[in-house]
C-alpha cells in the first residue's frame, strides 16, 4: 500500500518535471521575464485555485457514483446551468440585475432543485423499471445533450462576465500575485469543502450517505431510507455544481459549454482520487488543477487540459482504484 502510494506520488512528480527536461532537450528557450521560481509559485497558486473549484463540482459527481454507481455525464451541464442562471439574474439584459452574491445563492438553490428534479423525474423511475446501469449511463448523455443545447438556445454562444468583481488589481504574495476576487473564491471554496467534510462526518444524513456508499444493501437493511439519501445526494451535487459554475464563471468567463470542458477534468479528478470517495475527489481535483496550471510553465497554455487528462490515463496504469480508493478488484 505505502509503496504504491509513494509510486504514484513519484509518478506525479515525474510528470510535472519531465516536460521541463524534455523542453530543455528540445533546446527551447524558457521565456524571459519573472524568474522561474516566481512563475512556478504563480502557477501553483493558480493551480490550487483551479483545483478547489474543480473539487467543489466533482464532489457531487463522486457522491452520486458512490451511492448509485451512475456516472453522470450531465454533471457538466449542471455547472453551466448554475453559471448561466446566476448570469441571467446578475448581468443579463432581460434579467432583474441582482448583485452577484444573491444571484449566486439563487443559482445554488436552482441547481439543487434541478438535481432533485432529475432524480425524481428520470433516475428514480428508471431504477424502478430495472434499467441497467449502462443504459442509464447513456441516458445521462441524452440529458447532457438536451441541457447543453437548451442552454445554448437560452444563453447564446457569446462568452460573458458577471457585472461585479470584473477587473481588480492583484495583491502580491511574495513574487506572485492574486486578485482579491480569486483569493475570496479560493478561500470560500476551501470553506465549502471543509463544510462538506463536516457534513459527511458529523451529521445524520452525512453518515447515511457514507453508509449507502459503503454498502447499499446493508444500509437499507439497517433502516436507512436509501431513496431519501439518494435524493439528498442529487440535490447536494446539483447545488455544489451550480456553485462551482458561478465560481468558475467568476474567475474565468461564462460560456455555454464551460461545464462540458470542466467535466473531463472532474472525471480525471475523481478517478485520480478513487471513484465514489468524496475526499478522494477533493484530493484528485486539486492534483488535476495544479498539473493543468503547472504544465503551462513548459508547454503552451492551449495544452493545459490535455496534460491533466493524460495524468488520468497514466495513473490508471499504476493504480486503477485511485490515490485514496480502496484496493479492491475492479476488473
Amino acid at each position, binding site marked *: 500500500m505505502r509503496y504504491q502510494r509513494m509510486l504514484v506520488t513519484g509518478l506525479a512528480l515525474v510528470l510535472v518535471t519531465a516536460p521541463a527536461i524534455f523542453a530543455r532537450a528540445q533546446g527551447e528557450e524558457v521565456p524571459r521575464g519573472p524568474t522561474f521560481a516566481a512563475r512556478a509559485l504563480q502557477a501553483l497558486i493558480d493551480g490550487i485555485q483551479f483545483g478547489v473549484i474543480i473539487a467543489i463540482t466533482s464532489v457531487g459527481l463522486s457522491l452520486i457514483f458512490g451511492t448509485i454507481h451512475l456516472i453522470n455525464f450531465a454533471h457538466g451541464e449542471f455547472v453551466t446551468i448554475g453559471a448561466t442562471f446566476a448570469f441571467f439574474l446578475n448581468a443579463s439584459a432581460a434579467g432583474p440585475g441582482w448583485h452577484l452574491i444573491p444571484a449566486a445563492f439563487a443559482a445554488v438553490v436552482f441547481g439543487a432543485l434541478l438535481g432533485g428534479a432529475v432524480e425524481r423525474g428520470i433516475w428514480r423511475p428508471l431504477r424502478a423499471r430495472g434499467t*441497467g446501469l449502462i443504459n442509464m449511463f447513456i*441516458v445521462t448523455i441524452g440529458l447532457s445533450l438536451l441541457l447543453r443545447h437548451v442552454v445554448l438556445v437560452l444563453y447564446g454562444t457569446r462568452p460573458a462576465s458577471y457585472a461585479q468583481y470584473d477587473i481588480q488589481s492583484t495583491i502580491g504574495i511574495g513574487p506572485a500575485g492574486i486578485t482579491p476576487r480569486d483569493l475570496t473564491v479560493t478561500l470560500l471554496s476551501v470553506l465549502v469543502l471543509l463544510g462538506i467534510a463536516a457534513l459527511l462526518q458529523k451529521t445524520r444524513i452525512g453518515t447515511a450517505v457514507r453508509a449507502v456508499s459503503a454498502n447499499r444493501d446493508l444500509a437499507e437493511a439497517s433502516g436507512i431510507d436509501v431513496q431519501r439519501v439518494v435524493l439528498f445526494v442529487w440535490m447536494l451535487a446539483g447545488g455544489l455544481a451550480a456553485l462551482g459554475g458561478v465560481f468558475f464563471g467568476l474567475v474565468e468567463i461564462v460560456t455555454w459549454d464551460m461545464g462540458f470542458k470542466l467535466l473531463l477534468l472532474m472525471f480525471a479528478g475523481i478517478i485520480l482520487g478513487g471513484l465514489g470517495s468524496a475526499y478522494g475527489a477533493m484530493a484528485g481535483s486539486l492534483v488535476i488543477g495544479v498539473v493543468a496550471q503547472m504544465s503551462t510553465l513548459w508547454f503552451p497554455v492551449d495544452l493545459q487540459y490535455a496534460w491533466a487528462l493524460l495524468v488520468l*490515463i497514466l495513473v490508471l496504469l499504476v493504480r486503477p482504484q485511485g490515490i485514496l480508493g480502496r484496493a479492491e478488484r475492479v476488473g
Partner: protein
Amino acid sequence: MDFSAILSDALRSGIGPIAAVYALAAMGLNLHFGYTGLLNFGQVGFMLVGGYGLAITVSTYDGPMWLGVLGGVACAIVLALLLGLPTLRLRADYLAITTIAAGETLRLFYRSSWAEPVTGGVFGLQRFANDFYALSPIEPGTYGVWLVRFGARDLWVMIVGWALVVVAGSLLALLIHSPWGRVIRSIRDDEVAARSLGKNVYAYKMQSLVLGGVIGAVAGMMQAIQVQSVNPDNYDPAVTFFLYTLLVLGGAGRILGPVVGSVLFWFVLSFIDSALRQAIDAEFVSPDLISTSEVGAVRFALVGVALILLVAFRPQGILGSRKEMLLSGR
C-alpha cells in the same frame, strides 16, 4: 412551407455521404459496444487519427494517398493498443471515461499551437484528397431521381462510402458468426463464464477494440475526404454521442443496426432542421421563440430527448432484441 424541399433535404441527408460515414463509424462502435460490451466513448478519437493520418501524410509531407490511408490505419491500431492496455482489465465505466478523455486529449494536442507545423493547429489541413477525386469515373454534373440530386463529387464519395459500409458489414457479419464472434458475444453476456472456459478475455477485447477502431479510422478518412479538410473542432466528443444515439436507435448488436440508425438519424435531423427553418420563414413559429440561428441547437436538444426516450422505452432500438441488450452494470 415547401414540403418537397423539406423531404428532399431529409432524403439527401439520409442517404448522403455523411450518413455513410456515420454508419461506418457506428459499425466499429457496434463491434465494441453492441457485441463486446466495451463502453468506448472515444470513437471520435479513432476518426480523428484516421482523418489526420491521411491529411498529414499527403498535405504536410507530400506523401502518396495510399500511404496516408495506411498511416491512418496504423495510428488507429496504436491508439487502440494504448487505450486498451491500461483500461481493458478494468470495469466498463473506467473505459468510458478514459476513452472520452483520450479522444479529447488527442483533439487538444492536434489543435495546439505546439503541433501546428504538422497538423495546422486550429486551422487544420485542406486539399489532400485530390487523388481520390481523380479516380472518380463520374462525369461532372448533377445526378438524381425524383427529389434527390447529388453533385458528381458527392456521388463518388457516397458510392465509395456505402461500398465500404457493405464491405465492413459483410466482414463483421462473417466474424460475428464465426467462433471468434461467439467468444466476443459471450464476453459481453458473461465475462466470468467466458474466462472460466479458458478464453483469454483480455486478448479478445483488445482484438475487438483494434478492429472497431480501424473501422472508425476509415470512417474518419472518408469524412475528411468528403469535406477535403480536417479541423480539430470537427472531432468534438459530441460526435461519439451522436454515434451512440444512432446505434441505440437502429439497434446495438445487429449488423444492420448502425446502417438503419444512421439513415434514420440523418433523415430525422435534417427533416427537423429543414421543417423548423421553413416554419420560421413562414412565421408558423415565432422568431422570438426560436430564431433561425438557434435551429441547430434545437435539433441537437431533440436528439438528447430522443436518446433518453429510446433508452428508457426501447433500449433494443428498431432492430435489436430486448433479451440481448439488457446490459448489466459491468
